[in-house]
C-alpha cells in the first residue's frame, strides 16, 4: 500500500554522494517529491550544508573519499545534531548495524527509500 508521500513536500533533504552520475539522477528523483533538495560530494561538504541549510533528513552514500558516511554521522552526533539519516551503499556488508540509521542497498526501489524517510521522520 503506497503511503501519502505528499507530506514530503514540506521536507528539506540532503543527498551526499561522490559519484556524479548517481548524484544527478538522484537529484531528479528527489526534486519531484521534496520541498527542497541539497547535494554534497562528501561528508565534509555535507557538514557545511547541514550547518547552513538545516535539512530535515540526510541521505548519504557510505563509502566516500575525504569523509565517509559513518564519519559524517559521528561528526553530527558530536555536534549534538540528530538529523535523521539514511545510508545508501554498494557495500552493505561493511556497514553492519548503526543505531538509529536506516541502510538501503544500491540499487534500491524508490518506494523503499521514500518509506524509510517517512519512517525516520515519523510522518
Amino acid at each position, binding site marked *: 500500500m503506497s503511503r501519502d508521500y505528499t507530506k514530503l513536500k514540506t521536507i528539506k533533504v540532503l543527498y551526499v554522494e*561522490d*559519484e556524479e*552520475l*548517481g548524484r544527478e*539522477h*538522484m537529484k*531528479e*528523483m528527489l526534486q*519531484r517529491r521534496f520541498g527542497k533538495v541539497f547535494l554534497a560530494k562528501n561528508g565534509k561538504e555535507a557538514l557545511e550544508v547541514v550547518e547552513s541549510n538545516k535539512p530535515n533528513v540526510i541521505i548519504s552514500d557510505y*563509502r*566516500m*573519499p*575525504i569523509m565517509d558516511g559513518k564519519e559524517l554521522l559521528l561528526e553530527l552526533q558530536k555536534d549534538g545534531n540528530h538529523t535523521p539519516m539514511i545510508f*545508501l551503499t*554498494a*557495500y552493505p556488508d*561493511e556497514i553492519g548495524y548503526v543505531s538509529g540509521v536506516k541502510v538501503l*542497498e*544500491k*540499487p*534500491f*526501489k*524508490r518506494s523503499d527509500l521514500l518509506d524509510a524517510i517517512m519512517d525516520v521522520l515519523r510522518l
Partner: protein
Amino acid sequence: MENEKVIVGIGASAGGLEALQELVGKLPDDNGMAYIVTQHLSPTYKSMMVDLLAKGTGKKVLEAKDGVVVSGNTIYITPPNKNIRLDGEIIRLFTPSGEAFTPKPSVDIFFESLSYSKKNYAVGIILSGTGSDGTRGMQCIKAEGGITMAQEPSSAKYNGMPLSAINAQSVDMVLNPTQMAEELPEIVSHIREGKTSSVKTDSTYMEKILMRINQAKNIDFSEYKPTTISRRVHRRMAALKMNDASEYVDYLYKNDAEPDNLFRDIIIGVTEFFRDEDAFLEFSKNLEDIVLKKSTGGSLRIWDVGCATGEETYTIGILVLEMLKRNNLYGKITVQIFATDINPDATRAAREGIYPVSALSSLSKKTLQDYFVPENEFYRVSKELRDIVIFSQHDIIKDPPFLRIDALVCRNLLIYFSQKLQDRIFPLFHYTLNNGGLLFLGKSEAIGHFENLFTTLSKDKKVYRREFSIRKEIPNVNFSRKNSYDLTKGTQKEKNEKTLEEYVIEGIGAYFMPMSIVVNEGMDIIYVREKNPYIGFPAGGTTMNVYKCLEDELVAELRTLLHECQKNMTPKAGVFQHLKKSDGSDVSVRMTVIPLLYGKNISRIYIINFQEEKQDLFIEVVSEEGKRSGGVDQVRKLESELNRTKVHLQAVIEELETTNEELQALNEELQSSNEELQSSNEELETTNEELQSTNEELQTAYAELKAVSDEREIQRDLAEKRLDESIEVKTLLQEVLDSSLSAVMAFDSLRDDSGEIVDFEWTLVNKEAEKLLQKNAKELIGNSLLKEMPGSKTAGLFARYVGVVDSGEAYSGQKYYKNDGLTLWLNITVVKHKDGCVVTLTDITEQKGIEHERMLFEKSRRGTILELLENLSHQWRQPLNNISLIAQNIEDGYEDDSLDGEELKKKTETIVRTTVELSNLITMFSSIYHDDVAVDKKVSLQECVNKAISVTSKLFESLSITYSISLEKDFKVGVQKSDLVEVLISLFMNIADAVAKNKVTLPVVAIEGYEDGDSLYVSVKDNCGGIDKEMLPKVFDPYTTTKFKSFSKGLGLFIAKNIVEIKLRGEIFAKNNKDGAEFIIRLPNE
C-alpha cells in the same frame, strides 16, 4: 534435713528447647524443687526462652538474676552471654572471659558450683546438644553425691552432649524428657529419706557389700570410713529407686554390672587445676628450698597419691617447671612426678591429659599458652609437662610405696580413710619420704598425732616436713600380705611413755642432774639436757652415737659404765676424771649411768649424768687428807693410785669386751638395714613382677616385630638383588628410550578426593622428550603436567590423557600445538599404563608445515578470487544503481508528463553506455583467469599493470587514489598473465587499505618497471606512511594484515609472495621509503 531444697540443673544446647518444653510441661507439682536451666544461646540473640517455657507450665519461669536466692517450684533461665554459678542457694552471674569457642552459658561451670553447693541435693540433667559441655559437670555432681540424668540419645535431636556424658560414666539414668519429669519426685524422696541410713545401722549389709566389691574388683574398702561408703551406697539406691538395703545387696550380688557401678561411685573423684591456689603456692615455696639444695644432675621425685584425673598432678608439674625455669635450673634437675590412683579409668584419663576449657578457667592465659595445646574444643597437656609425670594404678593401702621421695602430695584422700588406716599410712609416708621431704595434705586433713614424724610448716596450708627419726622405722604395712601385727598401738603407747619419761627426767634432773643426756639402746643420743661441753659433733658425717660425740677421754669409761648397766640394769657411777676445758680451766668430771626400762617392747634407755667439780676444790680435799695422815699419806696415795690403776685395768679389759659387744650391736644394725633392704627388695620384686609381665608382652611384641623384620630383611635382600638387576634393565631401557626419535613420556594420574583425575605427574621422559619440550628431565620428573605445561589443558591434550586412562582405549592422532612457548605439529600416541599413561610425541612440524603452507596457499588463492568477485560486485552496484535511478525517473517523467523525446533519448543513451561499461568490467575480470591457456606465451607487463589498475580503479576512485605508471619499455614476461595481475591487485588493495587507515589526503601510487642484468624489477610505491617497524618482517606471513579495515582478507601479501616465488620463479621484498612503503618484485628477465 527434710526441707533441704533440691536444685535441678538442666544443661542443653542445640535441639534443647524442644526437650526442655517437653520436660518442663511434665514437671511434678510443687515439692520444693528448683530448676536452673543453662541453655547455650547466641550471645547476641535476644532470647525468648522465658516466654516460650512459661507457656507450657504452671510454674514460675524467671530469668536468672545475680544475687537472687533460689526459691522452690521456680524455673530459672540463664540469660545469654552470661555464666552462672551457685553460691549456696544464691545465684551468681558473671560475664564469661574471652574464649570465643566455648559455649555460653557453660554447663560445666554451673554444674560444678551446683555440686559443691548442694552435694547430694543436686540433680544434673543433660539434654540435647552437640559437643561435650556438661560431662565434667555431671562428674562433679556425681562425685559430690548428687544424681545425674541424661537424655536418651535416640530421643535427642542432637545426641552429642548426652552421649559424651554417658560415655564418661557420669550418668545414673538415661531417660527421655517425659520420663525424667516422672522420675524427679521419686528421686527427691529417695534423696531425703536416704539420710536415715539403713545400711549403716546394719553392719552385716555393709560387710556383704564390701565383700562383693572385693570379690569383683579386688579392692578392699573395709578400711575406708563407713560413712563414705554408705553415702555412696545410698546414692546408688536412690538412682535405682530402692528403699531396702537388703534389696540392694541382693541386686549387687545378682547384677554383674552393679559392683562396677558402685565401685566407680565410691572412687569417683574430680580435681581442679590450682584448687586452693594459696596452699599450692605455699607448697611450691617450700619445695623450692629443697630444689635449691639439689646439685646439678640431681633428681626431684614427687609422689602424688590419689591423682584422680590428673589436674592436681599437672598443677604440681606446672609449679615445678615454673620454679626450675625461674631458678635457671631447667634441664639441670631431673623431675619425676609419680601420680597414682586406685581408679584405672582416672589414671587413663590423666594420662591422656585432655581437658575441656571449663576445667582450665582458673589458669592464666600464659600458663594455658605455655603448657597446653588446643585440640578441637579441648586442650591437651603439652609434651614438656606430660613427660615429667608417670601415672600408674596403685593402691596406697596394699601396694608397695615409692621410695626416696622429695615431696608427697596426698590431698582429699585421707578423709575417706578410717583413723586406723590413717595411723598406718602416716608412717608409710614417713618411710617413703627423704629426710626433710615435704608432705602436702588436703584442706581438712592433718597429721594427727604424728608430730614426731612430721614438723608442721604451715598449719592452714597443710604443708609438713618429714623429721629425721632416730631409727628409720620400717612401716609395718603389709604390702600384699596379711599381717596381724598392729604397729599403731605400739606407736601410740611409746609416745605416751616418752612424755612420762620426760616428766621424770625433768623432775629429778632439775635438782640432781643439771647436765645429762639420754641415749637409747643403739647408743644414739636422743635427749640432751642443758648445754653439755663434753658432747660435740665430730667432723664428717653427722651421727648421734654417743661414743662419737663424747670427749675422747671419757669414752672408755662410758663404755665400761654402760656395759655394766646393760648387764645389771642398775645405776653405775664412774670416778672423777681430770679434764682441761676448752677455755683452759681444769675440771674434774664424773659420769653416772642410770638405766631405765619402758614400753611393752622393753626398750632400754640410759640417762648419763655429768657431775662436774672445780679442779682446785678437788685438790684441796686431797691435800687436806694428805696433811692429816703424813707418811701414811704417801702409802695411801700410792695405794689409791694402784687401786685406780687396777680399776683402769679392769676398765681396759671390759673395754675390750665392750668393743666386742659394740661389734655385736653394729652387726644388729647391719641386720636391721638388711631388713630394710629386704623390704625394698620385696617391693622391687613386686615391681619386678609387673615389669616381668610387661617384659613378656614386650618380648612377644618384639618376637612378632622381629619375625616381620626378618621377613622384611629377606625381602629387602631380594629387593636389593632385584634392584641391581632392575637398575641394569632400567639403564638399558633408558638407552633404548633415549635412542628413540620420538619423545616418550610416562605419567601417573593425580586424583582428587572424589577420584577424578585432576593432573598428571611425570614419571619418565626420554632425551627426545627433553629436546622437544625444551625442558630438563629433572624439572619434569615428579612434577605436575599442568604446572610444567599448562598449555596441555588449553590444547585439549590433558582431556585426551584423562580419556585414555579412564577408558583404557589408546589414542592416536595429530595435533597442532601452539602453547607453552612451543609451536609444533605433533603426532600423538597415548596408551594407558597402570594408573597413568605413556605418551609418545613425534615432531611432524616439517612435513606438516609444507602441507600447511600449501593448504593455506590454496585457501588464500580461493580467497583472493572471492575477493575479486566481491570487488566486482561492488563495482557493479553503482552503475546498476544509476540504471535503476534513470529507469525510475523515466517512469516518474512519464507519469507527470514531463518526459519529452529528447529527455528520454538522453536517458536511454546513459543506460546503454552504463551497460557497456558493466559488460567491459565483466570481460576484464574473466580475462584475468581466462586468456592464458598458453603457458609459453609471453605477456606484456604494461598489459598486466593496466588490467590490475582497471580492476581496482573504482576502489582507487572512491579513495581518491591517483596513480602513475612508468615502464622503461614494454617488457615481455614469460609468465601467466593472471598470476602477475593477481600479485599487482594484491599490492594495490594493500595500498587502498593503508590509505583508508591512515587517512592520506593525496594518496599516490607509483608503478615502475626496469631491468637490471638478467632481472626485471617491478616496483609499487605509495606515500601512505610505510609499514610499522615490527610488522615489516612479518608482512608476508599469512593473516598478518597491515590494515585496520581490510579490503583484502589478510592473505593478499602472503598469496602474492607465494605466486611470485612458486609460479613466477622470482622474489618479492617490502621496504619503507621516506613517506611510504615500497614493494619490489624481481622476475627473471627473458
